[in-house]
């Protein structure tokens, strides 16, 4: 008895040590991914912010035309521009803008003088709710459909799914939005047609309010994920290791979930990283339709109003969002397919 426990301990110990080593290696990998992504992030951020800032100089817009309305005489314009410091040299303006950004200051809106960071954070909760839900819907259904199509490929199921996906993905989001409102809100009365209720008021109202916009937004990523997954899976089915797994007598299900999916999911996941900016962009349209006062609506309103600092703020925030999201995707990707860490 005693011997056997001792034995057991002796066996267990190296196991624990090994597990620890494994955990350390995994953590190391995450750190490396992180470091690499940050190394990418910094130049991206620099270039993107510069581009963003250059927009104002190129646009020649000024806060005066927004603020002054009918009293926008040239004198008044000059006065306002001076007040905003727009008569300083370009690089000096960029520098102070950039240092402000580093401090989390996005400046004040031209149209209402409010702190842009505050305005954006107001809208962000809404947009992120919608975008996240859209992403979840898109990913869940995209994975389901893509998988089904790949497994049943070249059958009518595959063709039906691919057809369905293309039809849905090619509908402009605003058409989808209006159709959804007409059917589910006005027609069936199941869901509210517009507006937003914060989750603090109640999870269910919150959910019902964001469901339609999220649906409208989810079709595109759904189609894309499904399509990528389908071709990824098909490609991965052609690999020898699948033959190997068949020969070892693993069930088709198991082969699919453990072997094919793992290797075929890469492109679909990296597409997700890509999709995020598109979704954020898409929220411009959906929020405009669904009367949501989110980030996209803010972006559109500011752009339409010619509120350059607000637009710059929007771009900076979206860059940060996208980069963060990509970081997450990269880490997930790294965990799912360690082989992808080689080379590139």
């Amino acid at each position: 008895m005693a011997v056997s426990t001792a034995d057991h301990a002796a066996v267990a110990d190296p196991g624990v040590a090994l597990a620890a080593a494994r955990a350390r290696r995994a953590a190391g990998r995450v750190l490396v991914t992180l470091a690499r992504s940050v190394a990418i992030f910094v130049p991206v951020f620099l270039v993107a912010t510069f581009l963003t800032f250059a927009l104002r100089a190129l646009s020649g817009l000024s806060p005066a035309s927004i603020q002054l309305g009918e009293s926008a005489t040239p004198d008044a314009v000059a006065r306002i521009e001076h007040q905003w410091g727009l008569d300083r040299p370009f690089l000096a303006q960029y520098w102070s803008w950039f240092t402000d950004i580093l401090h989390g200051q996005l400046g004040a809106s031209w149209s209402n003088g409010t702190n842009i960071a505050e305005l954006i954070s107001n809208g962000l909760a809404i947009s992120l709710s919608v975008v996240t839900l859209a992403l979840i819907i898109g990913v869940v259904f995209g994975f389901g459909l893509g998988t089904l199509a790949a497994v049943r490929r070249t059958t009518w199921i595959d063709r039906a799914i691919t057809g369905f996906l293309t039809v849905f993905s090619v509908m402009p989001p605003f058409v989808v939005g209006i159709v959804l409102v007409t059917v589910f809100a006005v027609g069936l009365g199941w869901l509210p047609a517009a507006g937003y209720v914060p989750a603090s008021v109640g999870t269910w109202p919150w959910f019902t309010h964001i469901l339609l916009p999220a649906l409208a937004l989810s079709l595109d990523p759904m189609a894309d994920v499904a399509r990528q997954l389908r071709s990824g899976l098909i490609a991965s089915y052609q690999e020898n290791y699948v033959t190997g797994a068949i020969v070892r007598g693993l069930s088709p299900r198991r082969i699919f979930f453990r072997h094919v999916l793992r290797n075929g999911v890469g492109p679909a996941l990296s597409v997700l990283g890509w999709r995020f900016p598109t979704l954020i962009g898409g929220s411009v349209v959906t929020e405009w339709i669904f009367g949501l006062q989110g980030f996209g609506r803010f972006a559109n309103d500011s752009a339409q109003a010619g509120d350059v600092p607000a637009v710059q703020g929007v771009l900076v925030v979206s860059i940060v969002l996208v980069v963060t999201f990509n970081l997450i995707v990269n880490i997930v990707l790294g965990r799912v397919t360690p082989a992808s860490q080689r080379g590139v």
Partner: protein
Amino acid sequence: MVRRVLALPTGRLAVGILSLIVLLAILGPTLAPHNPLGTSALTLTGPSWEHWLGTDYLGRDVFSRLLAGSRTSVLGSVEVALIALTVGVVPGILSVYFGRVFEWLTLRIADTLIALPFLIYAVAVTALLGNGIPQAMFTVGVLVSPLFYRVARAATLAVARSQYVEAALISGASIGWIARRHVWGKVLPPVAVALAQTIGVGFVVVSSLSFLGIGVQPPAPTWGGLLASDLGYLSYQPWAPAVPALLIMATVWGSNLLADAIRDVSGEAGRALLHSRRARARRLDPAEPIPAGGVAP
């Protein structure tokens, strides 16, 4: 490649749809029965013999406007795709061969452009720098170019590291030779896929911009613009958006189908697919698409 695409029913369908659209783009403006800009007192009428698709809010013939708008619309999204193509593919391929500095720079630029949500950026740029389809197209084109950059680069990388390129190198082949003979064939299908996709994206983006009131240059008609303005008069003509929407969808659908078909027939997998189709046609017993293992090896 063309023949292989045409061998697929979906390929034929895609090519059929797209040729119709191209025909429309070429002939559309001359086919228009009415002056697409000519207003009349008959506004927002339903379909009639005189106006097949009714008239719009200014009393213009919708059918004529659709026809007249086809060229601008198609050219617009083709322009997006071509801009993205040139801006993306060339540096994508060169990044593999032009040394580390170039590689690093282009990679960072591509990362940057990816990070910019392009609809927001397109809204920003066109709103701030002036309205007009060309600006919108250019912006969108540049912003989606990383897709091409990545696709081209990945394909080129895979080829560049392959032994058959080394084999060609050992025979004294120049970079140009290798690009023509080995790289091009591998890069082309994914680029074609990306191109077809981008044409679709172009359409959707332009119509979204029009919907937001950006990028339209009245009174010149575009499908996206028509769609967007029709949505404002739903109570008068609830069916009106269907027509431009269908045209847009058909085009995008056609390009996506084409993209899928190209993907399906390119490379080894494509040849295998064609073989199995031929084989199935020969085989008498029809049902046995999946080998006994339950999954295709």
